[in-house]
């Protein structure tokens, strides 16, 4: 029996909606009254186009694809956070999403108070939480801290509590989105064990992950999507092969060629990395300054978009820099071109190859990406053995305390 039915689902986001003020909205509102309800198609960004799939009871479906392919939109549609523009979605049974752990936690409330709050948000009744409370706290390993305001929790503790609540909802359908990327290894194993337990009890799951290992360990079938459309639906191994041989390397081959800017309100048209002297290079000494230079072109007026630049190794984001975090809000005129640079004072990475993801989002919270380029550029870093192992250069020294000293 199909637990999830996704039939010819399309989802468009309207680009200019809710950008802020009445001054712009009044003419728009007027236009609607007069009958131009559906603004021109150029105003729409299609996150999904005619996507169909079903998930059978007890099955675990993996959802993979490059950034901006529509994975998160699919999950949001399944959890009813957003509605499809067209098509039909049916989910039979209680659904819970391991999407945003601890969303709705209030920093001033204690762990206990937040468990109750978060539990009811996830659809548990007070009585159910009463019954499961001790189990939740034990799972999160927060017995001693449960009556402390969560603002004094470490981020690990925060996530543990969020996860503990979410998995104790005991749904028929579970959505998992990349949440396992957080927390320490031991806790992560515990989470995977819990998820596997769901599977053994015949529950249905949809898993989004960039981790090949996670997809392999959990999924019966995999749906590969790109640009909001299904590319492949079937065997896990085959889907992963397709994805890794096809997409990842294709993105890397396209270095320098950033594709068409058509239909993008603002786009990145050039990426390069510079060394301390401002010379283009792809090879750096650990700890030296480095600069990422982006060229952009705005096709139309764009208000306060967010530029981002991420450094990745494999699928792990090691660092993410955004204009929003830097508090920069700038409006771009139609036709404006320019250069923006991210200057890294010290590239504190260790020996190895790293990839760069760059892009422009509508704003900090928006799912809408005006432009995105994954693995647009690969660079290498050289370091000495004594500088350490791993990814990050943490200047350090060893000291033995002398006896009696």
């Amino acid at each position, binding site marked *: 029996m199909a637990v999830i039915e996704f039939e010819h689902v399309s989802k468009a*986001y*309207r680009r200019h*909606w*809710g950008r*802020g*003020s*009445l001054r712009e*909205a009044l003419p728009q509102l007027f236009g609607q009254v007069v009958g131009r309800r559906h603004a021109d198609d150029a105003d729409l960004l299609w996150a999904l186009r005619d996507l169909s799939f079903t998930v059978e009871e007890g099955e675990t479906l993996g959802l993979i694809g490059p950034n901006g392919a529509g994975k998160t939109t699919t999950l*949001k549609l399944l*959890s*009813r*956070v*957003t*509605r499809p523009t067209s098509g039909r979605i049916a989910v039979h049974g209680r659904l819970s*999403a391991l*999407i*945003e752990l601890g*969303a*709705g936690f*209030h920093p*001033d*409330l204690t762990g206990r*108070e937040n468990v*109750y*709050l978060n539990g*009811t*948000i*996830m*659809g*548990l*009744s*007070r009585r159910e939480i009463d019954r499961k409370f001790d189990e939740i706290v034990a799972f999160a390993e927060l017995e001693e801290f449960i009556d402390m305001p969560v603002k004094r929790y470490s981020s690990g503790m925060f996530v543990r509590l969020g996860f503990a609540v979410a998995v104790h909802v005991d749904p028929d359908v579970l959505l998992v989105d990349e949440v396992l990327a957080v927390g320490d290894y031991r806790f992560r194993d515990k989470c995977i064990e819990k998820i596997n337990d769901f599977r053994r009890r015949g529950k249905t799951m949809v898993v989004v992950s960039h981790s090949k290992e996670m997809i392999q360990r959990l999924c019966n079938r995999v749906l590969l999507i790109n640009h909001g459309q299904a590319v492949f639906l079937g065997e896990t191994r085959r889907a992963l092969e397709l994805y890794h041989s096809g997409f990842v390397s294709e993105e890397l081959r396209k270095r320098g060629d950033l594709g068409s800017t058509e239909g993008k309100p603002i786009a990145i048209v050039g990426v390069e990395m510079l060394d301390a002297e401002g010379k283009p290079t792809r090879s750096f000494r650990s700890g030296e300054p480095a600069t990422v230079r982006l060229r952009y072109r705005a096709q139309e007026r764009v208000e306060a978009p967010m530029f981002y630049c991420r450094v990745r190794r494999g699928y792990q984001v090691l660092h993410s820099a955004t204009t929003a975090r830097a508090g920069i809000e700038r409006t771009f005129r139609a036709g404006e071109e320019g250069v923006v640079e991210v200057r890294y004072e010290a590239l504190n990475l260790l020996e190895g190859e790293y990839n760069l993801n760059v892009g422009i989002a509508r704003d900090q*919270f928006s799912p809408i990406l005006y432009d995105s380029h994954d693995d647009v550029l690969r660079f290498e870093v050289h370091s000495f053995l004594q500088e350490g192992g791993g990814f990050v250069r943490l200047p350090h020294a060893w000291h033995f305390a002398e006896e009696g000293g």
Partner: protein
Amino acid sequence: MINHLRELWRYRELLWSWTGREIKVRYKQSLLGAAWAIVQPLGTALIFTVVFARFIHVPTDGIPYPIFSYAALLPWTFFATSVSLATDSLVRNMNLVTKIYFPREILPFASVLAGLLDFAIAAVVFVGMAIYYRVAFSWSVALVPLLLLIQVVLTLGVVLLASALNVFYRDVRFIIPLGLQLWMYLTPIIYPLSLVPERYRTLYLLNPMAGLIESYRRIIVQGEMPVLAQIAPAALVSFLLFLLAYAYFKQAEQVFADII
């Protein structure tokens, strides 16, 4: 509409716990805590008394001015605070709205319900004042819950509209304080209804708060039964507004997560 209410009922536990959260958060961070619920209407009543009873001598149908104004400020403060807090409730909790599904009206509704506690605390002070001024309560006081019900329905209608519009147009946040101020002057709080010229009165009473405030005073302070011509339009307008606002809200709700 029935379906919406049924779904809201299924999520009632969330409404209670979110209301609890609103209350806890409101009092946890502030030094005076619950005392603020009293300070605000009491302080305003004091100022009004000095200005409008000592300086300007506003007639009050024979009621001592402090009790005259506090009896009106009590429900008004509940209304105004609820509206200003609830308007922002969806935008303030955007991380929740974009991540998890639940009936969105829970957020503005919880702000209003949380305001009921403030109202109850401030009402205790009123009882003290009433004893001091030797107000003779009569059986008409038993009608307070009815008035309160109408007022809550009105408030819910207003916050449904305001919070949804605030998602689309952030200007709403700035319009609300101004609107509330104007609204206060169009409501018999500082002055009695009898001061409003007879020929404007029908129009004036289309403002549901006008009929409500005047009726609160009648049944509590003056010990008389409410006048149907005052309370009926208020009830009618309140329920109509609520229905329309709810229908609009549920329509608009479908795109909240895409826009916030």
